[in-house]
C-alpha cells in the first residue's frame, strides 16, 4: 500500500512539474494544482498510513491516526485554493490586457521602459 501512495505522489509531482514548465498560463495553473495535490498528500502521509482510525475521539477507542498533519493540510488546501484563484485572475488579466497567454516576460518588458 505504501508503494501505491508513494508512486501516486511521485506521479502527481512529475506531472505537476512537467505542466508547470509549459509556456502557457493555463497549463501552468493545471500543473500547480497537481503539485498542490502532491504536496498535500505528501504532508498528509508524514502521519503514516492508517486505516479506519480517524482522529475523532470515541469512548472505548484508544488508537487514532496522527491528527497534526491533517490539521496542517486542511488549511493548506484552503490556502492553495486562494493561491490558485489569484494566479488564475492574473493569467486572465494578462490574457485580456496583453492579448496572449504566454507566461514568459517579453524582451521589451525585461529591458524596461528606457530600452
Amino acid at each position, binding site marked *: 500500500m505504501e508503494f501505491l501512495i508513494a508512486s501516486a*505522489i511521485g*506521479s502527481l509531482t512529475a506531472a505537476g512539474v512537467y505542466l508547470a514548465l509549459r509556456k*502557457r498560463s493555463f497549463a501552468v495553473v493545471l500543473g500547480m494544482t497537481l503539485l498542490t495535490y502532491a504536496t498535500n498528500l505528501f504532508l498528509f502521509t508524514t502521519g503514516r498510513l492508517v486505516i479506519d482510525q480517524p482522529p475523532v475521539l470515541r469512548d472505548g477507542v484508544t488508537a487514532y491516526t496522527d491528527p497534526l498533519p491533517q490539521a496542517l493540510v486542511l488549511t493548506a488546501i484552503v490556502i492553495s*485554493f486562494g493561491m490558485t484563484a489569484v494566479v488564475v485572475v492574473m493569467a486572465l488579466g494578462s490574457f485580456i490586457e496583453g492579448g496572449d*497567454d504566454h507566461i514568459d516576460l517579453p524582451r521589451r518588458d525585461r529591458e524596461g521602459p528606457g530600452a
Partner: protein
Amino acid sequence: MTPALIVALPFLGAMLPGLMVRTSRNAAAMACGVFTALALLGLILNAPAVLAGEIVTTRIPWMSQVGLDADFMLDGLGLLFGILILGIGLLIILYARFYLSQADAAGPFFTYLMLFQGAMTGIVLSDNILMLLVFWELTSLSSFLLIGFWKHLPEGRQGARMALNVTAMGGLAMIAGCLMLGQVAGSYRLSDIIAQREAIQSSALYLPALLLILLGAFTKSAQFPFHFWLPRAMAAPTPVSAYLHSATMVKAGIFLMARLWPVLAGTPEWFGIVATVGLATMLIGGAIALFQDDLKGLLAYSTVSHLGLITMLLGFGTGAAATAAMFHIIAHASFKAALFMGAGIIDHAAHTRSIRRLGGLRTLMPLSFGLVLIASLSMAGIPPFNGFLSKEMMLEQAAGAAGLFGWVATLASVFSVAYSLRLIVHVFLGPVREDYPTAPHDPGAGLWLGPALLVAVVIVSGLFPNATLGWIVTAAASSVTGQALHPHFALWHGVNPALLMSALAITGGAALLALWQPADRLRQSLPRIDAKAIFDAVVGGAERVAGAFTDGFSNGSMSRALAAQLLVALACGFGAWQSGLAGPASRPMLPVTPVALVGWVMMLVGIGTLVTLHRRRILALVLMGIVGLTVSVTFVYFSAPDLALTQISVEVVTVIILLLALNFLPKRTVLDTSNLKRGGDAFVAALAGLGVGGLAFAILRRDFAFPSISGYMVENSHKLGGGDNVVNVILVDFRGYDTYGEITVLGIAALTIFALTETMLGGRGARRLQGWVRDMRRAGDRHPLMLGVATRVLLPLSLVVGLYIFLRGHNAPGGGFIAGLIVSVALVMHYMASGFAWAMQRQSIPYHALIALGVLAAGVTGAGAWFAGQPFLTSAFGYVHLPGIEPIELATAMGFDTGVFLCVVGAVMLALNSFARIARQAGRDHAAPDATGTAPTQATQP
C-alpha cells in the same frame, strides 16, 4: 543616564520631525535640539565616573546564543566621541535651522540628521561588535539620504550613490573582518575582544581580519585611494558637510582603528599599512586641496588630509602618538566644523562658493572674516590655536619615526599652511570686487553663533590645553592604549625638531601661496587622474558582469528559471539524503486492498491522460476533477474525513473558477515547444517525481524518529479543548494562531483578486472586454427554469447542511472551513442557475464585509481570553442543559470557528464574484447598468 538610553534618545528625537513631515523649521529643530541636549546631558552626567577610570555599561541580552546582545559601554574614548557628536550636533541643528530655506522639507532633513546622530552615538557606545556593525551601516545609509537631500541636483544624487557604494563596500569587508575577530576571540563583546591581544595577533586570521577591517575604516574615513567620495559628498547641504563629512562620520573609521588599537596595533603590518596610508593621504589631500576653487572642495580635501594625519598617528602605535591623535580629533572637529559653517555663510551671502569669484570680503563681512581667520590659522598650525599644538605633536612623532616620515609630513604641512592661508588671502583679502552674484553681508546670529562657539573652543583650548582638553584627551588616549597616560600639553617646548619643522612648514606654505598662480598653471599642464571616471568604469563593469550573470539565469523564461530552481532543490535534497542518517526501513507495509488498487489505477490513468491531453483545456479540467476526486477518496480511506470533505468542496469551487476563466482563455494550448524542450522538461519532471516519491516511500517505511507532539493533542483534545474532533480542535484551539493567520491570508488573496479585477475592468482591459468576440457557442437557454427552481429549493436545504456541518465540527468531521465551502458552493449554484444579476439583487451583505467580519470575529474571540487573564486565543467551554435534548456544548472556539466560516464564505464568494464580473463586462457597452448594481434580470447578456 545609561549608555543605552543615550543612544536611544537621538532615535526618539528622529521620530518627531519624521512624524510631522510638514512641520516648521522651528518646531523640527526644537524637537531635535531637546533630544540632543538631553543625550549630551546624560553623557556629561556620566563623565565623572568615566574620568575616574570606570567603564559605564548597559547589558541587554537579546540573542546571546549567537553573541548578539545590546551591550553598551562608555569609556574615555566613547566619551570623547560622544561629546563631539552630540555637542557639534547641537550646534549644527541650530545652524541648520537658519541655513535651510522655507522651501526645504525640514521634517525629513532633521529626521535624517537625528538618525545619523543616533547611529553615530551607537557606534561609539557599542560594546558588541555585531551591533556596532549595524550602527555602522546605518551611518552609511543616513549619510546617503543626507548627501542626496536636494534630490533635484544630479551632483547630489551621484555623490550620494558614490558615497554609499564606497562606504557600504568597505562596510561589507569590515563585517567579514569583525566576524573573524569575534571568531578568534570567541566572543563578539568588544571588551572581551580587546582583552585578547596575544590570541588575535598570533592567529592566522590576524592579517586577513586586519586588512578587511582597515578596508572598512579607510573607506569610511576617506583614506587614499578611497578618498574620492568625500569631495563629491559636498553636494550635501552645508550643515551636513560640516557635521558628517568633517566632524563626525568620517571619523568613524578613525574611531574603529582607535577602538581596536589594543588588539590590532603594534605589529609591523599595522605600522606598514596604517601609517603609510595615512601619510600618503595627508600629502595627496593637502596637495589637491590647495588647487580647489570650490570653498567646500578645498575644505573637503583638507579634511581628507587631516584624516590622513590622524590615521598616520594611530599607525605609529605609540601612546604619545595616540594622545596626539585624540587631541587632533578634537582640534580638527572644532576648526573644520567652524570653517564649513563659515563656507556656508559665505555661500548664503554671496551666492557663490567659487574662490575665483570671491575676494575682498574682509570689510563686507567682518564678523565672518574674524571667525574664518582664526579657524584657518588653527588649521594652518599657527600658535596659539589648538591646531598648532596637535601639529607640533604630530611632527614630533613623525620626526621620531623611521625613514622619510618626518620629511613627507613636513611637506604635507607646507600644503596645509598654503591652503589655509589661501582661504584667508584669496577670499577675504584683496580689493573689494564689483561682481559678486549678490551683495555679501554678515548673517544673523542663528548662523554665526555655532561657528563662533567653535572658534572660542579653538582659542581657549589652544591657550589652556591642559585645563580645557587635558582631562578628556587623557581619558580617551588611556582607553585607546589600555594604559594610564599622563600627557602634558604646552605651547612652548623649547627649540626642538618639531618647532623647526613647523617653522619650515609655515614659511614654505606662505611662499607656496605667493607662487600660487604659476603653481596652478603648472598643475593644469600636468595630466590629471579623474577618480570619478575610474569609479564609473568599475561600477559599469560590475553592472555588466552582474547583468550577464542574471540574464544567464533568468532570461524572462519562467520555465527556465523554474527548472533551474527545481534542479538546485533536487541536488540539495539528494545531498541531504546522502549526508543525513535514515534508519532502516522497519515499518511493515499495509496489504494492498482491491479498492485501493482501483483507486491507484484511476489516479494514474487520470494523471497520464491529463498530461497527454492537457492542450485540450476543457477536457483537461474534467480530468483534473477526476484526479482531485481520487485524492479526496485517498484522504477518507486513510482516516482523514475532514480533509476529504475540504478537498472535495474546494475541488468544486476551483473547477468553477477555472471554467469561468476558460470562458475567455483559448480553449486549446498551442504546441509551441520543440521536442527537445519537452524531452528536457520531462526529464526534470521525472527526476522531481522520483525524488518526491522516493522520499515519501522512505518516510512511510519508517517510524517516527522521535516522539511526535500529536499524542498530547489527542489526549487533551477533550480535556482542554472540549472537542472530540481532534483536527478541528487543533485548528481552532491548539494551533488557533496559525488558523487566524491563514484566514487572514485567504481574505487578502480574495481582496487581491478583487483589486486585480477592478483594474482590469477599468482602462485598456475594459475596452478589450467590450469588444469581446466569444469563441464558443452559447447555451440556448442561459438560465434553465428547471435548474433555477431546483436550486431555489435546494438553497435552504444546503444552508441547513452547512449549519449542521458547522455545528458538529467540534466533535465530528466538519467545522468552519468545510461549512464555509459548502455554503459557498450552494450560493454559487444559485449564481449559475439564476444569473449573476438576479443573485446580486438579493444579496444584502457585501463579501468584503464578510471577510472583515470573519477576521474580526476570530480576533475578538481570541482577544476575549485577555479578559479572563489568559493569553490570546485561549479557549474555554461549558455545557448548557436544556430539558428534553442532549447537553449542548458552548465553547469560545465556536466564535473563532464562526470567524473562519465567515471569512471562507466571503473570500470564496468575492473571488467568484470577481470572475463573474469580468464575464458580465464582456461584450457589452457602457450603456448597460453597472455590474454590481441592481441590473434587471433580463439585461445580463446579449
